[in-house]
């Protein structure tokens, strides 16, 4: 594996994800940006925190561990 490839791979993915493009690599998974709205989080002890909105990368994959050990 060439380092230039990995660097390019990271960059391409990063750019595409940032453009809100869904990157689908069959046989591996999909990357996409998901927006998390601002929301209140209530802890069990009564603490309430306002969590700011965020964009997060989400990776979904159908690949499962083949040899479950």
């Amino acid at each position: 594996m060439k380092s230039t490839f990995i660097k390019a791979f990271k960059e391409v993915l990063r750019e595409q994800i940032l453009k809100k493009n869904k990157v689908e690599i069959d046989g591996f998974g999909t990357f996409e940006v998901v927006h998390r709205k601002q929301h209140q989080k209530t802890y069990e002890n009564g603490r309430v925190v306002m969590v700011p909105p965020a964009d997060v990368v989400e990776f979904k994959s159908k690949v499962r561990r083949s040899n479950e050990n």
Partner: protein
Amino acid sequence: MKINRAKLIELLVEKTGMGADEIESQLKQLIDRILDAAERGKALEVKEFGMFYFDEHGDLKFDPADELSTEINFKYAGMEPVELKPARDQDSEEQAKDLSSEEVVEDPKDEPSSTGSDMDEIFGFNVGDQDLEEEDEGPIEDDAEGPDGGALISPPDKVDRDIDPFSGLLGDASSKMKGSSDDDSDKDKEDPFSFILEDDDKEEEKAQKKETDEPFVDFGEDEDKDDSPPFAPDEDVADVDDRIEEEDDPDDLSSIFDGPEPKTAEEKSKKPEPVAAGTKKPKSDTKSKKVKESQKERDPIMMVISIALIVILVIAGFFIIPSLFDSDEPATDMTTEQPAPQVDAPQEEAQSVLTPVEPEADVEVTEEEPLPPEPEQPVYGLMGNLVDEANDGYSIVLHSMQNEVRARSEAADLASEGYRVLVSPRLVQGSTVWRVSVGQFPTIPEAQQAAAELPNPYSTNNFIQRIQTN
């Protein structure tokens, strides 16, 4: 838009200049390697991108690296969770009423004010009817009945006083056990700030108490009516608390806090004194004198403490109020410029075992080859002139303003100090902000390192953004 494998390869070819076949095989290698490592139960990290691993359910997971997350989340950079309501123990108190009241009651002890009210409730509860009657009579009829009535109580009194410190502890604990959560809820409803307003009233009451003994009767009666103690009167506890009241400064303090609480609390705050008088009374005349003395001693202390409180509040007011008005726009801007989530470099080193071999140096060298305008100036850096080739890197945002003119003037100031300054408009939540950033850095860690070395207040008030984000 969806990027599928073919499109991805196309983009990669564009980026690297390698052949499509080569890219294909490289991509396959990468995926194989990720899956292989994951299969072996290891997490494979692609530096500055993220980690791939199988979770406990055997699903392939990806944890984005901080660099990636920061970048993706650039719109909301610097936004931190805001606590709306602190952790409260009241709820759990009520739930755990039955069994673990001990543990629950301990929580409020952490706060001084609630400690006070705690103590107060203890008084309220543990002062039994029997005790009160004796106490009430004491002051009025002077010493005549005192010894008789007190005969019952005095022995335990003495015992408790002898083993003072420990009895204090024991009394505390037992009272905690007994201090019911019913009472706690009462306390919680009361306005915690009312003491500020009612402080003066309270002092007057105290003064009255000192001057005339009659109020004691009233208080006693009140207690009889109001407090039908859910628990049997506990002499020991009352005594112990009594002692604590007299000796410990914190408790004096606490009584100040409690006293001013609205009505029920007022009554409670008065109770300690009657108790003190009553329990002591039985001993002898000297005892009762001592009590009166201690009361007199306490009053000045409370006066002083309450005055100190007021002074502190006033001083705090002086400091806080101007600062509220003074804070002009730059300050408000700064609030939006919370430092971006930090990335720790050491972690990377530790994980580099798993990282695909990636000699970054090589890559950087290739990038540094096309040295553009000034041959002396490195592509990346904090100072100097902007280098277009370095725009694939990161920059330290120092100002974020909605006013372009102001942003430009800030930028000019920074430029005159020799920084590489970028001004970039960004759309944040529907409105355009102008971000003034300095430096061009190849990686986030490098930018963060440089940011930490900036002069105040920039060293802490900044965040990193990718130059060409959108």
